[in-house]
């Protein structure tokens, strides 16, 4: 058990320093202990709380099992996952292209970058009803709201990565007569890869926030419909279970991006 645990830690590139001779458990064991203590606390609290509002952990686990057998809910979860992936793909592809243009072209940097910064600084939450008004209550509004949260961090990190390139490399390329596309493929893109992966991670957290916010806002269909139904019917076990499942999707997507980023940085380092 122990080596696997230590390896999982190393994958997150966090050195584990086990306190020697202090009698304290390792940080990871202690962390698991904290989580276990919280679950026990939840169990105890659920014993005192009104069952209309709080469900004990084991009831939530049973609910997860049951809900996974419900085809309506499964299709709502599947649709949310699909919206998350679509918004992420659109935002990262478009963001990388715009970021590259801003990073490499002085004109684009002067003309487009200020607009990007302006839009990024706008608070997006109040615009949620506007998105739903324009794109409807279907997946389009959720994807659009996810894209609008994810694209700007992507543009900004890629623009920064493609702009700050070792001038010696560029001078070398130019003096050996490299063509524009050769410079792009052999110098600009390789040096921008680290910022590209950072952009992906930031874009993922933006996508999650945007899509989930829009999903909760639209109560006629999708996840929002089920959260309203479970809350109105005082079925906390189902509500907790749905939230746990969505959180699991979010954590998985986040971790994929984070591991990708960490792995790449290790190659480079």
């Amino acid at each position, binding site marked *: 058990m122990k080596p696997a645990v230590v390896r999982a830690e190393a994958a997150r590139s966090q050195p584990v320093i086990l306190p020697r001779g202090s009698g304290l458990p390792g940080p990871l064991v202690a962390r698991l202990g904290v989580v276990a203590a919280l679950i026990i606390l939840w169990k105890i609290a659920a014993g005192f709380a009104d069952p209309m509002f709080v469900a004990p952990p084991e009831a939530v686990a049973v609910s997860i099992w049951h809900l996974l057998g419900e085809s309506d809910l499964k299709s709502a979860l599947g649709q949310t996952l699909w919206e998350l992936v679509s918004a992420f793909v659109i935002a990262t592809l478009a963001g990388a292209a715009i970021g590259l243009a801003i990073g490499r072209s002085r004109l684009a940097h002067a003309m487009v970058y200020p607009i990007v910064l302006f839009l990024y600084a706008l608070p997006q939450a109040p615009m949620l009803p506007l998105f739903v008004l324009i794109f409807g209550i279907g997946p389009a509004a959720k994807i659009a709201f996810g894209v609008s949260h994810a694209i700007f961090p992507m543009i900004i990190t890629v623009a920064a990565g493609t702009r700050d390139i070792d001038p010696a490399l560029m001078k070398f390329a130019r003096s050996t007569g490299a063509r524009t596309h050769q410079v792009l493929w052999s110098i600009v893109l390789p040096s921008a890869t680290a910022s590209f992966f950072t952009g992906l991670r930031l874009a993922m957290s933006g996508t999650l926030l945007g899509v989930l916010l829009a999903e909760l806002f639209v109560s006629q269909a999708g996840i929002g419909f089920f959260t309203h139904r479970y809350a109105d019917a005082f079925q906390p076990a189902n509500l907790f279970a749905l939230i746990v499942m969505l*959180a699991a999707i979010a954590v998985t997507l986040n971790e994929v991006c984070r591991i990708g980023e960490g792995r790449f940085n290790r190659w480079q380092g």
Partner: protein
Amino acid sequence: MNGMPLVSGSVKLGFVLLLGIAWYVSSAHQLVNPLLVPSFTATMQDLWTLLRDGVFWPDLRITLYELVVAFAIASILGLAVGYAVSRTRYTIKVFDPLFSSLYSVPTILLFPLFVLFFGLGSGSKIAMGATIAFFPVVLTTIAGLGNAEVGLVKAARSMGASDWQMFWQIMLPASLPVVLGGLRIGMVSALLAILGTETIAAIGGLGHQIVNYSDAMDTPMMFAYTLLVLAIATALNSLVTALEGFARQRIA
């Protein structure tokens, strides 16, 4: 490079003007569905009415109240927990990754639970805002206090500084710049969370009012109110940034 702020400022201004002109022309010539994009002039008239009659004040008060309470809870808890955790390297190792992985979970998911626990009123918004703002505060407090210069800490300890002196004379000044950044991020994300959750399910507040006009299909008013809320949120954002800069200068 000296002309850059001027260029960037005029590009921004030009963009906003262009957007306004495009909106004006397309709505004046019925190029877009007026139910989706209202007439520019009608929206401006409604915006003027809103500002003149001040009907937004009660909702602004609700939103600000939620923001202040949420931020107070988040910063007190975040600073206290961050301080406690940063006392030893061991607790930092145990809790810091825990908080940062929780921070990467979209906490907005908890909102349906908060509505169930605290109802549709301000309670659920405060809970949401406080939860979202807690993480940047606690993480920057741990980072700030945990990374105080080792030499400085050792020197103070060896000269027999008490815990109290250590905190006020060494740790606080060393960590404040980082912590101030965390407080600003916490405040801004709490504001966004409150505005967002007010649109999802609420009985009052700026976000809720936008949805009210949207549900009533009063799109000119909805656009006007959205513009107003964007302006208010942007102003609050700049205010917080300015406060942070002011606090930074006071320490330095």
